[in-house]
């Protein structure tokens, strides 16, 4: 009994969405840069408080860094510690970089010889690794994106081009062009199509030093667009989650989608 509980706990911690009540985030050291070869460093963690590392690190296995020319760039000096992961990015090109941890996968649980079994993998490995006649088979799918944006020099949008999978934002206002007191507009897509009625929760960092979350709630309109007027400068965490039935395997009845972005809002 104890062993299976421990196993469940271990698997739960390894699952990207185990800490689903917590906030996952990337925090770059800076988002507006200049020069021929500037560097940034990024923290990646899962925690309840923004932006404090006090729970578990965000794993960097599925980190994708897209350069302004659309190519992939590797992080440097990546490390995962007790409460956070950290990595450096060398911004050799001018333009906007997109830094994202993209976790998508299938999760299955069933009973085998009276004991609960858990499995996690991809649609490709599902057929091979999950028994077809598994008892009480429950399969769910999730697609999650945790991202942030950094610009060296003049902002551009090549790296921001939607991949067409999961929840993504189309920048009507560029994410590195955000200033306190100004309104920013975005369009939200699910699998490449504008998604109306998607609810966003936006929280400014520095929660330790105030008495309320002061979260901003906004939902996308019929065109999938929403606007935010930033009350103060700071780092903002933005999240939207939704569910649908567009799964990759028929045994999975539900797909959970989530999106997190860290946006830096500068003072005037």
């Amino acid at each position: 009994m104890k062993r299976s509980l421990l196993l469940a706990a271990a698997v739960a911690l390894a699952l990207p969405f185990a800490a689903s009540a917590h906030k996952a985030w990337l925090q770059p050291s800076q988002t507006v840069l200049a020069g021929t070869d500037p560097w940034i460093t990024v923290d990646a963690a899962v925690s309840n408080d923004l932006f404090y590392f006090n729970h578990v690190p965000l794993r960097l296995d599925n980190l994708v860094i897209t350069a302004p020319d659309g190519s992939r760039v590797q992080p440097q000096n990546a490390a995962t510690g007790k409460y956070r992961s950290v990595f450096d990015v060398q911004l050799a090109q001018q333009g906007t970089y997109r830094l994202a941890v993209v976790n998508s996968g299938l999760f299955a649980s069933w009973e085998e010889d009276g004991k609960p079994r858990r499995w996690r993998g991809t649609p490709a490995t599902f057929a091979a690794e999950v028994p077809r006649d598994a008892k009480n088979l429950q399969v769910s799918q999730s697609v999650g994106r945790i991202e942030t944006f950094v610009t060296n020099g003049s902002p551009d949008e090549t790296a921001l081009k939607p991949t067409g999978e999961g929840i993504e934002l189309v920048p009507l206002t560029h994410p590195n062009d955000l200033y306190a007191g100004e309104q920013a507009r975005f369009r939200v897509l699910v699998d490449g199509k504008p998604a109306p009625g998607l609810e966003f929760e936006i929280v400014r960092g520095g929660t330790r030093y105030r008495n309320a979350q002061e979260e901003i709630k906004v939902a996308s309109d019929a065109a999938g667009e929403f606007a935010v007027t930033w009350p103060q400068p700071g780092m903002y965490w933005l999240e939207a989650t939704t569910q649908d039935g567009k799964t990759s395997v028929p045994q999975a009845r539900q797909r959970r989608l989530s999106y997190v972005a860290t946006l830096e809002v500068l003072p005037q």
Partner: protein
Amino acid sequence: MRAKLFFAVSGLLTLPAYAAELQVQVEIPKLNVAEYHRPYVAIWLEGADQKVAADLAVWYQQKDTAEGHGTKWLPDLRQWWRKSGRNLDLPVDGVTGPTRPVGRHTLKFDARQPQLAKLPPGQYTLVVEAAREVGGRELVKIPFAWPAKAPQSGKAQGSTELGAVSLAVRP
């Protein structure tokens, strides 16, 4: 031949004795701080649409250091960087230069110079933004009309990173 010479000379005589002129004076204040660094300063003209109509001057660290030229810190001039700096190929001849010491600095531009030559008539704002390492950041504005039909002047007083800033426009 003689007729041609006459016309050429009369052409010269019809040029104005002087062109319209814009003079900006910026004071970098003396500050009593333990660690002093000369401020980065950007001076520009904004149209009624708040877009940059002309960059007049940008003073920043020109020396090479391990972190490259002082271009790394240009985004600290937040408004200038956003409105102009990030789209420029720096350095810009006649605009960018090294940081300046404490004191009053006068810049003169006449209407024939590139910054003013193509300026359409209208209401403008002179903007001066300064940011200092381990210091603060300040921005001052002086509105004026271009071209000047009569001499205009304007003043603004910074309180922290800038001293007296004045503008004189001569028709």
